[in-house]
Structure formats: structure tokens, C-alpha cells
């Protein structure tokens, strides 16, 4: 049966090219030079930007991505958990297409897990031997509301009562639990915000909207703008500012509420970069590594090298793109534009000086939005 399906998939690619969702999907393993990644749903735009460039090379590489939540990405590597079902890949225009992963019980082996949170946030344990955790770009996590909402900011205390107590918390106007559009305990978005509001990821009130798109749809479609609040990654929010507004956030012991950007309408992530906006984390790449700490498969090494900028031909992997440009297009923040850092989830923020400061370059690039 599996052989027959493989032939169908291969013929589909040869005759009609990539298939769209809803049609008969090709097998992911039949696509050119596949690299399989899974995890964070917030990182979708970043994968898309990389995927379309890789698909357009003379010798195409297919980035295959299953969006499930950060801790699923961690688990895929730490627990050797293959993935099944369908996955997304991209054509040269960035259009999302669908392919079929190998069916259970074997499934498809994941090359790189992608997580918005540190490994220990998912497993409760240090990174195990044989597994590597590599830091990529920075992303802010936001509280968002419908465009029609009059709310401008949310304090950590308000979010504690809204998401920790639900209606009983009396944190007006966010007292309608069906209008608290959240993710779940496996989500990096929820995991990062959980640290900032002192509500563990598994104890949030509200409605699990499964992924970023689900939160977006629920917030935008809410009949009560004022009582509605959701959580999203800043890259997802930035791509949907026409229908959403972000709420400035005031952390515990902070003197005011700040947007991730310097203003409600800018894209400079200045407050993320200088520490005024505390809800940020790194895109973590999780892969199996050898005894030298180097990703142990050619596919995982290529991907990790590309994202971390290790593109020197001697030790790294030359990239068909500038990761800085991909990061900007995906509306993330390159590490070289950061002035602060943190070493653990929700941990203290400390000054940071990158080897090569690209802050000015970043601000110039995003100013054209």
C-alpha cells in the first residue's frame, strides 16, 4: 500500500507539480531534498520566507513544516517522536502547499524541532545528552484585541486575574471567559506570557484556539470587542495589524506599559530590543547533535547553520539567502539588533552587546513598512 501511494505521489509531482490542499497530496518524502521541521506555530512566516527561497534554487530544497506548538517540536527531537498526518511546504511564490507525511506507526522523522521556549520549559529537565539547542531570532509575544477595542494596555496583574481566575478575577473588561482567546500548555506563545503574568501555562482560563490562526480568527470574529483579548506572536500580529491591535504590557514592578514597538504604529521593536517590553523569547532550534555539539544529520546541520548565520564555507553551510533579510521579512528581530538578553524563560533581563551591532540596519529596514 505504501509503495502504491508513493508512486501516486511521485507521479503527481512529475505531471502536475505541487498540489494544493484538498487535492491528492504528494508524499513529503517524495519532494526534492526535504528538510523536516516542526513545532512553533508562531514561526510560520519565518519558515515561509525561507521555504520559498529554498524552493527556487537550481537544486531545490523543500522545507517541510508541521505547525503544532513549541513543545511538540521539542518532543519530536528529545523523545524521538516522529510526526504523521499532513505538513506544509512552499512554492517559489511562498504559497503554502500540503504534503502527506509517512503514516503511523513509522511516521516521518523530524530533522529540527522549533520552539519559542527553552527545552527545559517543555520537559522540566536540562537539555539531554545528544540533543542541541541553538538560538535564532527573537520574537515578542503579545496580548492582542480586536481593532475596535478601546483598550490600550494590560498590566501583569490584570492578565493574572483575567487568565488565572477567569470571570471570577473581575479584571474588567476581560471577564468573559469565552472571549479569552488563548493557546495551550504546549504553546511557546502561552509559555512565554505565562512567566510574565505568574499563571502557569497549564492553568490558563479561556478558550484553547489551537494555533495562531485560530486565535486570530477568534479575536477578529468576536462580537464583543471590549471583553476580547488573545495572545499571538508579534510576527503574526504584524501581518494582521489591519484587523488587530496590540496591547501595551506593564510587567510586575514596571513603571508603565510599553508596546513591543516604540509606538502602537511602528515596527521597530525598540522596547523588545532595549528591555522595556519583557515578553520576548528566542526561536530555539532543537536537533540531535554529535559529540562535538554539531547537528548530526546533513539536513539538520544545514538548517541550523542557515538560521544561526553559520554560513562560512569552512565550518558552516553557505546559504542561498541572507538570514538577516529573511528575519526582517518574517517580522522577527535578529539577535544582532538586541541590546538585552536573557538566559532562561522569563528570566532576568541583562545588557547585551552583539559582536556586530545591526540595530541601525534593522531600524532602517523596518522603517519602510
Amino acid at each position, binding site marked *: 500500500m505504501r509503495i502504491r501511494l508513493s508512486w501516486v505521489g511521485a507521479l503527481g509531482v512529475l505531471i502536475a507539480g505541487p498540489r494544493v490542499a484538498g487535492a491528492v497530496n504528494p508524499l513529503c518524502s517524495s519532494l526534492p531534498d526535504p528538510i523536516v521541521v516542526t513545532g512553533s506555530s508562531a514561526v510560520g512566516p519565518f519558515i515561509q520566507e525561507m521555504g520559498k527561497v529554498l524552493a527556487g534554487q537550481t537544486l531545490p530544497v523543500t522545507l517541510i513544516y508541521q505547525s503544532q506548538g513549541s513543545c511538540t517540536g521539542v518532543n519530536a527531537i528529545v523523545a524521538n517522536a516522529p510526526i504523521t498526518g499532513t505538513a506544509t511546504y512552499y512554492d517559489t511564490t511562498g504559497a503554502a502547499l500540503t504534503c502527506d507525511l509517512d503514516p503511523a506507526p513509522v511516521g516521518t522523522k523530524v530533522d529540527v524541532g522549533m520552539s519559542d521556549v527553552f527545552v527545559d520549559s517543555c520537559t522540566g529537565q536540562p537539555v539531554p545528552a545528544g540533543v542541541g539547542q541553538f538560538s535564532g531570532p527573537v520574537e515578542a509575544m503579545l496580548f492582542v484585541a480586536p481593532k475596535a477595542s478601546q483598550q*490600550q494596555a494590560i*498590566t501583569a496583574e490584570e492578565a493574572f486575574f483575567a487568565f488565572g481566575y477567569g470571570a471570577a478575577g473581575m479584571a*474588567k473588561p476581560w471577564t468573559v471567559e469565552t472571549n479569552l482567546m488563548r493557546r495551550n500548555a504546549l504553546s511557546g506563545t502561552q509559555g512565554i506570557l505565562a512567566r510574565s503574568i505568574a499563571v502557569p501555562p497549564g492553568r490558563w482560563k479561556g478558550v484553547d484556539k489551537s494555533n495562531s490562526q485560530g486565535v486570530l480568527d477568534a479575536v477578529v470574529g468576536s462580537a464583543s470587542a471590549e471583553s476580547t483579548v488573545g495572545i499571538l506572536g508579534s510576527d503574526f500580529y504584524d501581518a494582521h495589524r489591519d484587523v488587530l491591535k496590540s496591547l501595551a504590557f506593564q510587567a510586575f514592578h514596571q513603571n*508603565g506599559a*510599553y508596546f513591543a514597538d516604540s509606538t*502602537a504604529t511602528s515596527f521597530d521593536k525598540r522596547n523588545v530590543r532595549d528591555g522595556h517590553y519583557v515578553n520576548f523569547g528566542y526561536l530555539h532550534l532543537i536537533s540531535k547533535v554529535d559529540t562535538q555539539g554539531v547537528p548530526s544529520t546533513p539536513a539538520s546541520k544545514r538548517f541550523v547553520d542557515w538560521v544561526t548565520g553559520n554560513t562560512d564555507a569552512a565550518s558552516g553551510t553557505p546559504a542561498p539567502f541572507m538570514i538577516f533579510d529573511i528575519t526582517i521579512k518574517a517580522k522577527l528581530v535578529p539577535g544582532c539588533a538586541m541590546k538585552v538578553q536573557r538566559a532562561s524563560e522569563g528570566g532576568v533581563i541583562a545588557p547585551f552587546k552583539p559582536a556586530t551591532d545591526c540595530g541601525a540596519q534593522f531600524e532602517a529596514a523596518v522603517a519602510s513598512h
Partner: protein
Amino acid sequence: MKKLIFLVLFAASCGDDPKAAPIDGAPPDMAPVAPTCFMGTPMTHDQLINACVDQSVTVIHKTPMLPLLNSDGTLPPLP
């Protein structure tokens, strides 16, 4: 002594933030008083998140009414 210097610096950095916005439609004269910010080179977490910003940065000062907040400002346990 070090703590005292910090407090003095913190207090000395007071200044009305022209970008501070009242919330929930409150008239300007009802807006909360702008808290202080840290002036100087921030090195610690609290200094970084409270460092003074220039007028190009929006700061929103908000004093929400939260009936379940403890009288000393601390959080109660989760239900």
C-alpha cells in the same frame, strides 16, 4: 549606600512623559500621575525595564481596579 544612590537616581529621574496616555477615556486631569523612571546606564533587570525613554516612545500609565489584589499589592494564590 548603594541602595540609597539607586533610590536617589530613581527619584531624580522623575519627569512628565508627554506620551503618557490616560486610559479608558478618563479626562486628562484624572490621569494617573506618571511614575518615575531610571536615569543613567541601566544594568539590572529592574533598571532596564524602568529606564527613562525619550519622547518618541509611548508609555501608558494605568491604575486598574482589581478587587482581588491583596491590600499590599501582592497577588493572591491561583484558585
